[in-house]
Structures are given as C-alpha cells and as structure tokens.
C-alpha cells in the first residue's frame, strides 16, 4: 500500500483497506491471506506483494485508517474525570467497529500481529499525555509516572472482557478508573 498522495493510488489503497477489514470481520485473524485480500480487492496478488506489505502491516494500516487520528480528551478538571473520559472514548471506539474489535483481540493472541499493534497503540496513547501532565501539576499523580504502566491498568479490565468475548459497558468506566487510581488494598478509598 502506497504512501503517495496520488488519487489513483489512494483509490487502490481504499479498496485494499476495505477488503482487509471485510475479511477481518468475516473470517477473523489467522483465517485469511494476502491472496484473499487481493482477490476480494480485485487486484493482482503480485501487485499487492510488490507493494512490500506483510499481512500484519496491512491489517495495522487498515485499522489505523479506520480509527482515524487520535484526539486528546478535554480537560474535565480532575484526573479521575479525565481518565473516565479517555476510557469511555476508547471503549466506544473499539466496540463501534467489529473489525477493530477483532483486531484488538487478535493482537493479544497472534505474535505476528502484536508488534505492529503495540507500536501503533503506543503512538495513539501519547495523545493523552497532557491529561497526565495536568494531573502531575495538580498533585494528583507522581511526576515519575509511566504512561504505559498507567494505560496497562486503565485498559486491563476492558481488554480482558474483549478477549473473553464479552462487551464492555462504558458506564462501568468510573469503576475501572477508581481501581486504577487507588488499587484494592485496605486503607485506601476511591476519590470522589
């Protein structure tokens, strides 16, 4: 898939991206090949291979395009509020598109797809760093926080439910965030 601005290339790219996403939904990971993508897109397999994309790269690109550019959440005035807003947005976005959800699940279980998914996810999460910097400025978060660690906790419960084939209710986001903020050891209570 090209990175040029040529409209002709873009049209081909769109067809390939759509074919990849359709197969992702229809068959799931591990059940289609580059040849299947080419056939569904109506292009020659050799042309797709010459473009230099692996199936993993193609899926990552397709999902990235489908998700669109990540957007920073608004300042709600508290770290808890910001985290709830961020998590709610992520839950809604992932669950709104079966292909994105399938890819999220497969990224956990297929080593071939995990690398691209991890790199892409890290880039997308960086857009939320201002919320964490605001929390540090307000004294709600230690300055030596690790953004990845924070998101490992924030996305823990939704990720597990998706892996187990369950839907996540966005209304549960406050419960997830409270556990992330205070943990479950005695002597701590969720901030209100």
């Amino acid at each position, binding site marked *: 898939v090209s990175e040029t601005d040529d409209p002709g290339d873009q049209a081909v790219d769109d067809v390939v991206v759509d074919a990849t996403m359709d197969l992702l939904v229809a068959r*799931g*990971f*591990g*059940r289609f090949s580059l040849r299947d993508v080419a056939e569904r897109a109506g292009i020659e397999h050799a042309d797709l291979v010459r473009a230099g994309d692996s199936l993993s790269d193609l899926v990552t690109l397709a999902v990235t395009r489908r998700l669109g550019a990540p957007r920073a959440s608004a300042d709600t005035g508290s*770290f808890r509020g910001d985290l709830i807003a961020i998590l709610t947005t992520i839950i809604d976005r992932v669950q709104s598109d079966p292909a994105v959800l*399938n890819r999220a*699940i*497969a*990224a*956990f*279980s*297929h*080593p071939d797809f*995990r*690398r691209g*998914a*991890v790199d892409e996810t890290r880039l997308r999460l960086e857009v939320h760093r201002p919320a964490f910097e605001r929390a540090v400025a307000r*004294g*709600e*978060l*230690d300055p030596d*926080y690790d953004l*990845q*660690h*924070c*998101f*490992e*906790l924030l*996305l*823990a*419960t*939704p*990720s*597990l*439910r998706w*892996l*187990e*084939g369950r839907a996540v209710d966005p209304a549960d986001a406050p*419960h*997830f965030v409270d*556990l*992330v*903020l*205070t*943990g*479950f*050891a*005695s*002597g*701590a*209570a969720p*901030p209100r």
Partner: protein
Amino acid sequence: VSPPARTSGTGVGRPRDTAIDAAIDDAAFAVLVEHGIAGFSLGEIARRVGVPKSTVYRRWGTQQALLVHALELLEQAQPPVPDNGSLRADLIALVEQRFVEFETQAAVTIERLGAEAGDDRAVLGPVWRIGERRHDAGRVAFRRAVERGEVRADLDVELAVEFLAGSVWTHIFSRRPRGASDAAAIVDRLLHGIASDA
C-alpha cells in the same frame, strides 16, 4: 505445560490399547498448542502417534470431538491456587504463573482458540471454562484477603479478579519484561493504584 493423566474414554467394542489413547492425548494436546484450531488435524495427530488415521477416527469419530477433548485437556492442565499467607504473595505467585504459561504458549493458545472459534460453542465452552478456572484462582486469593482484612471492605471481588487478569494481559501485550520483579511491580500497582499519596 503438558496434558494431565487421561481420565476418560468414549470408545465402544473391544478393549482399547490405553497406550495409544494416551499417545493420542499427548499428540492432540501438542498439535493444539502448536497450531491452534486452524492447524488441528487428525492426520497430523496420527502421524505423530505413528498410527493410521483410521485408528484415531475409530476412537473419536470426528475431528471436532477430539478437538473439544484436547481443549478439555488444556483446561485440566491449569495449575492449582497458591496459598502464601498474604494477598501480595498470592497475587505475585499467580502473575508469575501466567508469565510461565505465556512463555510456554499455553496461555496464548487459549486466547487464540477463543479468537479463532467464531461462534462455535463446542470450542468456546471449554475455552470459557479455562478462563473461569483462572478467575477462580484469583477469587480464592481475594476471599482469603477479605477474611484477613487486606482489601477494602467495599471491594468488588469480581471486578478485582478481572482487573488482575487483565493487567497481566496488558503487560504481556506491551512486550515488557516478565520476571519475578516485574510480577511484584504489577501487583504493587494493583494493590495501591497510581494516584499520588500527597
């Protein structure tokens, strides 16, 4: 990870060679872990055992029946719940167990099977039961912690169990190191959260 000792059979007619039954179990388990559902074939299992494919067919009838049996073997291979006297120690032990499972591909196999199964309930059933057994290990640890007063009185144990299991997955997903000190760091974040103490 290896399959547990054989506990059941489904055949009819003359007594079967239990050594072949056990060899089929071992091969089915190995093929499932190595290749997932997509690569699970009676032909490959028969080849590994060194018997004709018809021998496997006579015992199991269909590939699906043996696949479900192999999933059940995977389920029975889950380790017992550790009791180390404190929630922190129990959780670290559980997280370390999951790291080992990941290294042996057993955990990944189970999740991959779930992803590959689509709507196939015969496959999803054992996969979900494996997940439940893992959650049971967390539940036992948290219930002991409730009795010892180690967790908040208002803690939602079911949510905490999910939080624990999910945190292991997101840590593995991020390709971070997976040693004993990493398990302790994960558990400490789970216990105390990320909010500043100030």
